[in-house]
């Protein structure tokens, strides 16, 4: 972790009509920092990280990402936005692999179309990424043939092929069968070790404690608490963070907590 702030969110607010998703959210992410965002369902965690690459517009506040400036209720210029997105990778809860393309073509499409790199060069890099994930044998298959865990690891390769400086993970393991969660988390853990800057929305508390430098607890439409991962998860300071963690860490007391909990703590 260094002192350069690469994502600087200030006073962010998002609402759909009358419904406030979140309000007054501020968060600074440093280079090589891993930030895990946790909190109850529907509190706007996914919406928040989707604001970082402007997949969701927001209503007020500012986000500075790698020097690009996004402002509430102002449409960013399209070339600027494309440049920003080409430097910020995203992995989705539902994988969103392109079903009409092979695994390899999924991975090389971005670099070819966006960065205009030669196919041979991109293919070589894609095969290296697949090898790193132990998926070389899957290169010529279509996504539908792969398990959920394999699909999500391909999705990570697809994002990494763009050589991003920041990675956004939107609940990357929520759609996976329990036995497949580990392989995806392992891939993310390896990225963290390599010094990738990451913003990660997750329900895996153990994983957050283990891999994240910083944990952000969102509750009641804003950031309830943020701090070093271990400190926030083991001795939360605010009542809202305590209430959420109590529910999550003691499944059985609440059906919501039980459903969300995986792996146990």
């Amino acid at each position, binding site marked *: 972790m260094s002192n350069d702030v690469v994502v600087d969110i200030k006073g962010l607010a998002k609402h759909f009509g009358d419904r406030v998703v979140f309000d007054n959210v501020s968060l600074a992410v440093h280079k090589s920092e891993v930030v895990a965002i946790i909190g109850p369902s529907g509190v706007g965690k996914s919406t928040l990280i989707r604001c970082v690459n402007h997949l969701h517009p927001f209503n007020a506040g500012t986000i500075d990402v790698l020097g690009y400036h996004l402002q509430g209720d102002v449409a960013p210029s399209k070339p600027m936005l494309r440049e920003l*997105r080409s430097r910020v990778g995203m992995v989705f809860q539902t994988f969103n692999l392109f079903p009409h393309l092979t695994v390899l073509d999924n991975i090389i499409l971005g670099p070819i179309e966006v960065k205009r790199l030669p196919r041979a060069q991109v293919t070589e890099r894609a095969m290296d990424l697949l090898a790193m994930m132990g998926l070389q044998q899957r290169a010529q298959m*279509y996504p539908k043939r792969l398990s959920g865990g394999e699909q999500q690891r391909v999705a990570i390769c697809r*994002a990494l092929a763009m050589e991003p400086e920041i990675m956004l993970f939107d609940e990357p393991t929520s759609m996976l069968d329990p036995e497949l969660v580990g392989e995806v988390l392992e891939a993310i853990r390896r990225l963290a070790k390599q010094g990738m800057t990451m913003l990660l929305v997750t329900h895996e508390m153990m994983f957050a404690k283990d891999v994240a430098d910083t944990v952000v607890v969102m509750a009641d439409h804003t950031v309830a608490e943020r701090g070093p991962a271990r400190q926030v998860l083991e001795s939360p300071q605010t009542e809202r963070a305590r209430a959420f963690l109590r529910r999550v860490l003691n499944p059985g007391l609440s059906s919501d907590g039980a459903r969300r909990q995986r792996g146990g703590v």
Partner: protein
Amino acid sequence: MIALWRQYLPQFFQGVGVTLELTALSLLVALLFGFLLALARLSGWRGLVLGATVYTEVIRAIPVLVLLFLAYYSLAQAGIKLSGMTAAVVTLGGFYATLYGEIFRGAILGVDRGQSEAALALGMNRRTVMRKIVLPQAFFTILPPATNQLSNLIKDTSLVFTVGVTDLMFQAYAASSATFQPMDMLLLAGIVYFVFYLVLSKFLTRWELNVQRRRG
């Protein structure tokens, strides 16, 4: 009957040629114009959306024969004289464009939002997202209803004999007037239309299956 059929076969073949040409041209117009209508309705620009919506709702509610007569007779009265063939292509193309437009629009909207999000998140522009991600996936939603409409289009080309285009129906009608055997001649025309449809739909279905199998 067979002897009569043999005698009129050359005319029939000529008619078949005209029907095929008319179908191909009308389909081309309908596909291109229909695609533009779909894009216009999806563009979000108020004027375009309104124009395309009004055109679609009005045109598809009018019988093809009425449209054909409007294009051929009424436009001629207004000083725009179209040949029978041109009027036919304009009418069939313009009418089927509304149907294809709706098929395209529905299929494009039917592609999961996550697909374009994933592509946009990689930094692609909207055009590339449409070309590389959305349209290839919409294609297989489009194919079955588009095949259906094509078979309707083939059959509707038979209306153009009313404006003097010498298509298959025209030849069948002429032959039945000359031979006083309307039953036999129209039956032959019916068989030819049916064979068209059969060959075409078999071909398209096989193609669709092939690609679907390849994608696992």
